[in-house]
């Protein structure tokens, strides 16, 4: 068993796809994505081949819960800086500080992709009391950053570090 756990993928012709995850705890977890959009989650205790419990989600529920698990709404306190790494790809969540260089500038003006080689995936607006949190997904070059926003950015580690220093306002 690898320490990080393994995820296996299998095709279910006529039904959809199946993802089998071996967790660190020894528990196993299966996600079936049906072609018509529903997702079904199964839990298999260690040593069992048949699931003991399951839950069915609609497409929309699955997306919402998926983003909750992914940390889009609330980031766990332990991880100040959430970081997901898949091979060379790094995704970082960066909060724009008030003294940041990028505040008040647009994506095109900064030349994010050209100069830094990173891609802005989304920008989450600052939360204000009583207001729902909104996000600009895949914002265009005319999008202007303001302090307090959180930028979700993808790229290589070295280029991300450069960009990060500028956003958080630490030197650069």
């Amino acid at each position, binding site marked *: 068993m690898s320490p990080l756990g393994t995820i296996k993928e*299998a*095709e*279910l*012709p*006529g039904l959809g796809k*199946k993802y089998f995850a071996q967790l660190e705890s020894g528990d196993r977890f299966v996600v079936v994505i049906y072609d018509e959009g529903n997702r079904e989650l*199964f839990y298999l205790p260690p040593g069992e*081949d048949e*699931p003991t419990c399951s839950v069915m989600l609609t497409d929309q529920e699955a997306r919402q819960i998926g983003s909750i698990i992914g940390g889009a709404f609330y980031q766990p306190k332990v991880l100040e800086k959430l970081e997901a790494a898949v091979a060379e790809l790094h995704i970082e969540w960066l909060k724009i500080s008030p003294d940041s260089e990028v505040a008040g500038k647009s994506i095109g003006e900064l030349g994010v992709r050209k100069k830094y080689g990173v891609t802005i995936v989304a920008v989450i607006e600052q939360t204000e009391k009583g207001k729902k949190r909104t996000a600009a997904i895949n914002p265009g070059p005319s999008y202007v950053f303001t302090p307090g926003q959180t930028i979700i950015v993808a790229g290589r580690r070295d280029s991300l570090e450069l960009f990060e220093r500028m956003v958080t306002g630490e030197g650069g």
Partner: protein
Amino acid sequence: MSDALFLNLVLVIAGATAAILIARKFHFSSIPLLILFGIMIGPHAPHGAWFDLRLVEHTESIQMMSRLGILLLLFYLGLEFSATRVIERGTTILKGGGIYVALNFVRGLALGWLLFQSWPAMLAIAGITTVSSSAVVTKLLVEFKRTANPETELILGIMVFEDAFMAVFLSALSGFFLTKGTSPLVGIVAGVVTVAFILGILFLGRRLSKLLDSLLSFRSGEPLIMLVFSLLLIMAYFAEELGVAEAVAALLLGLVLAETSHSKRIIQLVTPLRDLFGAVFFFSFGMEIDCRQFAPVATYTLVAVAATVVGNYFTGLLSAWISGYRGRAATNVACSLMSRGEFAVITAGIAGVAIADYPLPALAALYILLLAVISPITAKKSRWIHTISIKAWTLFARKKAGSAAC
């Protein structure tokens, strides 16, 4: 169109809809119920002095819709099938699925010979009893929460395999019956010619797929479905002229279009059409059956059902064992594949016209109806069946050991 004719159509569609709604409500498979409703209110429905259930007639318009239904069912079969998908299943499933289908087919042939001792009927019975209904099997897997189980890949792999087998078998069968079954040799030659013809067209289709790709690249669905549907009708019309069954032509067109990059879109567009006309096909299949035919075929049907259940159990176990599944997973495979459906009816539909001497439609209807009741039970009780068979096996082994000791 006269009002009476239109009312007839309304009643047929309403009857089919009622069958599907009831099937859905009670988690029952819809095909046997569609046939049953067709029998119950069709031209051969029970009628007496004070009641008459003969509500609908088998008019020309219904016949036309039913004919379109079988064309669309076979077109869809071809469209969904792709050779790469079968190969992608991997060698273990290829082995397991191949053995499963081959053994079941041999069992079907043997059963057909045992029941009727005639060549055409033997082939028809083999076609009716070999292949499970993928719609029912997948529905049961989802319903019993088995999609996460490891053996599900094998079960669904077998389904893919069965579809492939049926595509070849149905073309050979309709080739065989087009010669009106004059002699087995002529029939087999016709079957082989049909299969060769298909392989030729498939080869051509691969070459043509680039051309078809650009021909079919429409932004909206309207011209695409119209063109595909006209192609289907044109192919079916000229097939009869060329001496190939129209069902084969439909299948063929599906196979050729499956190679194009638009196959997924065509599937999406054709599915509702197939559902609608397919329902009319199954319903009108029932309309042609006289319920009094059930009594003489009852014994045959019971034998066929018993042979299917027992045969399926052992071939399922064997193919699971070969694919590396043991214990309860293997029993699950064996118990999940019992249902029969669309292919049984299509085979009976193709064969029934050619060999009217045997009451094949009635047999097929009763057969899938019984299996529609049995298959969910075996699938649900597979855990219990597994424990029982283990107990029986140990008892048998102990007895053997005991007698050896004496």
